């Protein structure tokens, strides 16, 4: 850590000498140990030793950034020179800013040393248990790894933030097969602070495996209807939350004015039962970021409270450009630790109240239009008829408008996905077009 801190300061000093008015430097070392399963068998063991230097500087209100993965003196000097040249090539923009409020902090979290034998044992157990409990599942690819990252963020304004964090991660993709029949593939994963529990007991992995196994028997939908769609947590993130983030509340659509929510701050944008925050500091988050891209401390940030839009996801740059307020959470990541409070009904109770609809575990669609209109394939989905899950669906599409769906929220489930990066329920929305052949 001391070397990272020394290096960051040395780079900031070099940037200042090169004429920078303000600068931010992050130095990082990462060590990864990763077991790979392919087709249910151990196939590969990787150990990776990586490091990086990120430097951003502002010179005469012009900003440039570089990233390298060498701590070599010559490489660092070249990076500083390149960064200054990049800044000099840009137009002045007074909106650029880094955190200049001095703070000195050190954070440590998670297992900093990999227990390779235990990680191997948990991974082996996963492969064996899946084969035993879910014989139709083919575990196509599975990566079980331990990652430890030591990093220092320093700014010319006096910020020094040190972070040492370790975690275990599991990601897996699989499909179900029975003779010539097969399901769509599905993927998921979890981040964990320890290996105390079997992987199958984490997140929604067991429920997801069981569901996909049932999807080996599937059929296309005949015709088209407008009905209720229940989005499982992963589909909710892929479709609804990513559209909210990138089309409605991020820097770009607010700066260029294409966001349909640009004038909605303080107003209702969703059913009053919905609240949404991005929460790197939530208790259930494993290895959340400690600082934003501009060096500010990473904190939890409310976007929707009781259906009302209470915050955009603006960087300080975006806030300065739009006259808005900077979000406290990192804004340049995809869905940074989304949290939605659970509802009161169980998933089964929600299904029991639906005459005709679809339960969707994964959404595969084109990028939603700027106004949030979308269409795509309801992957790993089940038809709901007369309050019960019917057969699994293939070749079935859903289409609608994310903004409209948020207003037509029917129910939030009591069950949630807690995967170390999010806490999300199942949510049912009315008025979605479902079309088959």
């Amino acid at each position, binding site marked *: 850590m001391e070397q990272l801190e020394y290096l960051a300061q040395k780079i900031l000093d070099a940037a200042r000498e090169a004429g920078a008015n303000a600068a931010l430097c992050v130095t990082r070392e990462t060590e990864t140990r990763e077991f790979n399963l392919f087709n249910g068998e151990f196939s590969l063991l*990787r150990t990776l030793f*990586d490091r990086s230097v990120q430097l951003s500087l502002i010179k005469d209100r012009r900003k*440039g950034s570089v990233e390298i993965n060498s701590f070599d003196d010559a490489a660092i000097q070249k990076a500083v020179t390149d960064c200054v040249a990049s800044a000099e090539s840009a137009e002045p923009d007074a909106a650029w800013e880094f955190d200049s409020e001095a703070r000195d902090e050190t954070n440590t979290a998670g297992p900093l040393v990999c227990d390779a034998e235990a990680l191997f044992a948990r991974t082996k157990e996963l492969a064996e248990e899946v084969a035993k409990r879910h014989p139709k599942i083919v575990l196509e690819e599975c990566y079980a790894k331990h990652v430890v990252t030591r990093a220092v963020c320093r700014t010319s304004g006096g910020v020094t933030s040190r972070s040492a964090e370790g975690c275990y991660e599991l990601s897996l993709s699989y499909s179900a097969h029975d003779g010539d029949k097969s399901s769509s593939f599905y993927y998921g994963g979890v981040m964990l602070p320890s290996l105390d529990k079997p992987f199958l007991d984490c997140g929604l992995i067991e429920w997801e495996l069981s569901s996909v196994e049932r999807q080996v028997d599937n059929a296309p939908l005949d015709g088209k209807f407008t009905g209720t769609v229940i989005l499982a947590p992963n589909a909710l993130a892929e479709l609804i939350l990513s559209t909210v983030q990138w089309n409605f509340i991020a820097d770009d659509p607010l700066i260029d004015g294409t966001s349909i929510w640009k004038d909605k701050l303080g107003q209702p944008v969703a059913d009053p039962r919905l609240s949404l925050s991005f929460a790197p500091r939530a208790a259930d988050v494993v290895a959340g970021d400690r600082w934003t891209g501009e060096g500010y401390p990473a904190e939890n940030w409310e976007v929707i409270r009781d259906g009302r839009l209470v915050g955009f996801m603006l960087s300080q740059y975006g806030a300065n450009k739009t006259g808005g307020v900077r979000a406290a959470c990192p804004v340049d990541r995809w869905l940074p630790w989304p949290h939605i409070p659970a509802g009161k009904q169980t998933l089964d109770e929600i299904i029991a109240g639906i005459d005709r609809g679809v339960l969707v575990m994964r959404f595969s669609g*084109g990028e939603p239009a700027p106004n949030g209109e979308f269409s795509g394939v309801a992957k790993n989905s089940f038809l709901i008829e007369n309050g019960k899950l019917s057969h699994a669906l293939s070749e079935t599409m859903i289409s609608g408008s994310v903004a409209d769906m948020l207003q037509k929220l029917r129910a939030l489930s009591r069950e949630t996905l807690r995967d170390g990066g999010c806490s999300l329920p199942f949510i049912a929305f009315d008025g979605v077009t479902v079309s088959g052949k």
Partner: protein
Amino acid sequence: MLEDVITAKKNLFEPGAHTELRMQRNRERDVILLAGDVVHNTRADYSGVSARVYRGGRYGFSSMADCSSEAAERVLLAAAENAAFLSAHAPGDRPALPPAPGGCVRCAAMGDPEQRVYVDFIRALDGYIAAKYPKLLSRRLHATEDSMEKLLAVSDGTDAHTVSPRSYVYVSLTAETPAGTPVSRFRAIGGAGTFDTNFTDPAALYPEIDRLYEQLMQKREGVYADAGLRTVILGGELTGMLSHEAVGHTVEADWVLNGTVAGRCLHKRVASELVSLSDFAHTAFGAPCPLPVYVDDEGVPARDVPIIENGILTGYMHSRETALRFGAEPRGNARAWLFSDEPLVRMRNTAIHPGKDQLEDMIASVDEGYYLTATENGQADTTGEFMFGITMGYEIKKGKLGRALLDTTISGVAFDMLKTVDMVGDRVEWESYGFCGKKQPMPVGLGGPALRCKVLIGGR
């Protein structure tokens, strides 16, 4: 250029174990202008060395962010230890990998233009757009280059020193519909080569910008597609996506082992006899491919892979290890994105071969349907079910093009849909700007001619 400190380490390779030692540098250059302001201005360089050792069906891999001789020795040792760990804890019994042709491939050096070249070029383009089309709601321009340089030393096979530069200008324009709803059009222009060689004169791109604006104005008055199974003409860009997503992924041999639909279809009819499809290495239809590959990261010289011939599925794409399992011949499809990535079975330049039909005749043959011309993303499935986002298209009514479409999505099952192809255009279009995602990103080329077929289209 990378200094070769790895070839001399071959004497440290473990006898009897297949070993790859790779040194690699990736660089990325990005400048984004949003409404005239530079909102992103970044140069990134990642380099290092990695080793992979194969023993009895298990691989060990290690990488370091360091291009020194000492780092090469350390990753060789760590990779061998990892292979030994897996062999001891999860013993495998597969035989040694079959040998590959020996030799050495060398490519020329590539330049590295300074950041001002990117900034000045798109600023000139932005000035043109701002002056000519002041009523746009938004304009976003992105100048980008991502390039790879690789040094490879293998225990058997072909050693290599290769460079793979590619660069693009992405243009995204947004306007409001009469009802005040934003609609967008996107276009990527560029291909293999460094930015300064691909882009010398901003005015050369003005006609493309004008066409994009014209399409945006058509889309501004666009209508929703009528959801359901429809007869469509897929433009070449869509056919390229079809070649890659709907077919290509299902015939990657690692996916086949995991149970894709293609595993049951070898030597069977999977498409109309008008359809032939190949994964090209470096040359296709008498011209260089968009992103040529001459040798892969396992030291296998790259050759074309015929996949569908006149409607019959004829082959899969392989790594050395999957080729061993299938008793097939690897043809250079094992590729890695970063120095810290292991080679995976990847496509290179995947395309459906051209036919004999003229696009005008194809459109005229459709009584009611759609002509779909642009896509920005797609996804495949082990079942062969695919989806593409459609960002530009038109109604066809009684053989004539009608109104533009708002964004939608199409889907189908590849080997069902390809059997409905009854006309194939005579001109191939290529795209190469995107990344294929499969554990690691990877630049790929994809292409094809216009096709007449039936697909499921989303909409209202």
